[in-house]
């Protein structure tokens, strides 16, 4: 808050004590408390783990301004397993990019785990992604020439974690998805489903607040895709917060909650 009344020679702690007893004998009490109320921020309602307020995203190309999202409000609590579903062009990719701090909204606020990330710098966003978000992509996006163990270590590397610690954490993450026996193998030696499991391990390794999956079964066959969703269900049961973007209603049906996007707006919940 900072003491804006420093000109009067006040110090914050004194102010607080004065103001907290409105009918104190201190001569300045009444004036102080009135001014203090002015200074205090609006009372904060308890925010959800993920809270998007009036998020809009406009891609500006002059005359061809495209409004990908219009005034979207989303609140997701810890432990929820949510699907964002919508047709192509509905803005679900844009919404996912914003949720994942890969992009910033044109207007609106985004509270992620207590932080307002809507207006952060690129470097700050990188830190948030590193510590609070785990990505699972449709195309897996593993580093092809590193072992899967090193792949899973990647977020920890950027977090500055030491070598031993990294290896242990990565190994544990691989255990969670049942691939610890193939830790030294490279991604091209694994099947699609296995690669996606490595990606999930990587998403988990940094204990994120949110796991974001973008069409995670898009490149997998029916059976394997179903297995992957099983893993997500299991993670959700262990109190992980998961947001899954898909166009497939069958996949969406397996989540606890569905948010439908059409033309940049939420149509139903």
């Amino acid at each position: 808050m900072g003491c804006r009344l420093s000109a009067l020679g006040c110090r914050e702690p004194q102010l607080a004590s004065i103001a907290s007893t409105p009918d104190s004998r201190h001569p300045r009490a009444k004036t102080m408390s009135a001014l203090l109320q002015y200074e205090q921020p609006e009372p904060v309602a308890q925010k959800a783990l993920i809270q998007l307020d009036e998020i809009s995203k406009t891609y500006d190309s002059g005359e061809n301004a495209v409004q990908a999202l219009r005034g979207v409000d989303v609140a997701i609590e810890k432990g929820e397993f949510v699907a964002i579903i919508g047709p192509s062009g509905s803005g679900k990719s844009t919404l996912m990019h914003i949720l994942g701090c890969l992009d910033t909204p044109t207007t609106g606020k985004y509270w992620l785990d207590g932080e307002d990330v809507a207006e952060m710098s690129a470097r700050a966003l990188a830190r948030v992604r590193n510590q609070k978000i785990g990505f699972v992509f449709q195309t897996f996006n593993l580093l092809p020439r590193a072992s899967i163990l090193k792949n899973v270590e990647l977020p920890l590397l950027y977090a500055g974690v030491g070598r031993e610690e990294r290896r242990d954490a990565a190994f544990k993450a691989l255990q969670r998805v049942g691939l610890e026996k193939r830790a030294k193998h490279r991604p091209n030696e694994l099947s699609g489903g296995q690669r996606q499991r490595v990606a999930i391990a990587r998403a988990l390794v940094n204990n994120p607040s949110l796991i974001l999956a973008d069409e995670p079964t898009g490149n997998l066959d029916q059976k394997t895709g179903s297995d992957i969703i099983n893993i997500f269900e299991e993670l959700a049961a262990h109190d992980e917060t998961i947001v899954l973007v898909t166009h497939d209603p069958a996949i969406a049906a397996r989540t606890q909650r569905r948010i439908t996007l059409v033309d940049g707006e939420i149509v139903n919940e």
Partner: protein
Amino acid sequence: MILFESILDGIRDIKDHFGRTMLQLVGIILGAGSIVATFSLSVAGKTASMEYYRVSGGIQKIWVSNKPTGKVTLDAKALASKGLTYHDALVLKRDAKEIDLVSPVANENMTLRYRDIEKPRSIMGVTPAYSPMNDFHAGQGRFITDNDLATAARVVVLGTERAQEFFGSDDPIGKTLSINGTGYLVVGIMEEKYFSFDHKRNVMRWMNRQIYIPFTTFVTRKGDTLAQGKVSFMHVRMKDVKRNQEAVDEIKGILKREHGTKDFDVFSRVANLKRNEQNNQMYDMTFMICGIISLLVGGIVVMNIQLASFNERVREVGTRKAVGASPAQIFFQFLSETVLVSVVGGLLGIVVGKFFCDGIAALTRDPAAITVGTAVYALVFAAGTGLVFGMYPAMRASRLNPIEALRAE
């Protein structure tokens, strides 16, 4: 810590893309090698020249020789002048203050004979000053002495090749050598003079072929008086190299006064040296610029290949950013790759540069030696090139928009 890990990342990446790395290396290796070769050559060339000058009498040596005046009709003075004489040498010794040694020399072809070996050879009449003037001393026996000069003694000192030629393996000292029919006592053999730029040809060999008798003997043998004795040329030594111009002017002045005309030439090495230095500097500079350009080309190669590879790895950069790599971390990863390649290339380039040097030395007989300084230069230049030319691709990678990157094929 993060920086160190980024560097390790870079190392691993280079191992993974070894082919690409080799290409980058080639550019740097050639560049660094060129720098090593060119710098070494310029340094070595200078050292060898200085050494040669020292060995042949130092840069304080001035040559004084006869020279036609160039005038079509000679005036009375020119006609009267006899050219350089022993008298001039005495006058210079007496009057010139900038010099400390005068060595007049007269030479002529005569017939030499020992036992049944008879050959025409060039004989030089010299004074004792000849020895210190040319840093050339008797190896066996002695050189011409003041006494020999004073008494016009019939003594002779031989260069090693001549001794070998006439006496073979016999000891020449004490024996009599016939010069134009007159017997001369051999009193000394000179030391062997050797200097080579390329360790093959001895450029001082001509000195080992000389034959010396006292100047006075040389002159009076023909019936001339000493003062009239004609001098083929003179060596004069200046006291202070810095006062080169004053010395030369002084000599010129005295001789002009004595001769009445300018029928002589005074030549000092120092002026020549300065002129050579300027030429050499230009030569060196051109050479070095070539080396540096070579390295710049190497740097451009590195940069281009880095850019090409980065285009291939766009997806990968996107992934790294998605899991939280900051722009700075991406920047360092890519930059450390180029710097690493450049440093390795620099080290290899030093080895290649050594081969370049040896090759050029063999062809041009110019000596070339690699010093620690040159190697350090090459390495620093190479690393610097990697740093500078790696910046642009590293910046581009760090500024990549992760969303677009992830969309790329």
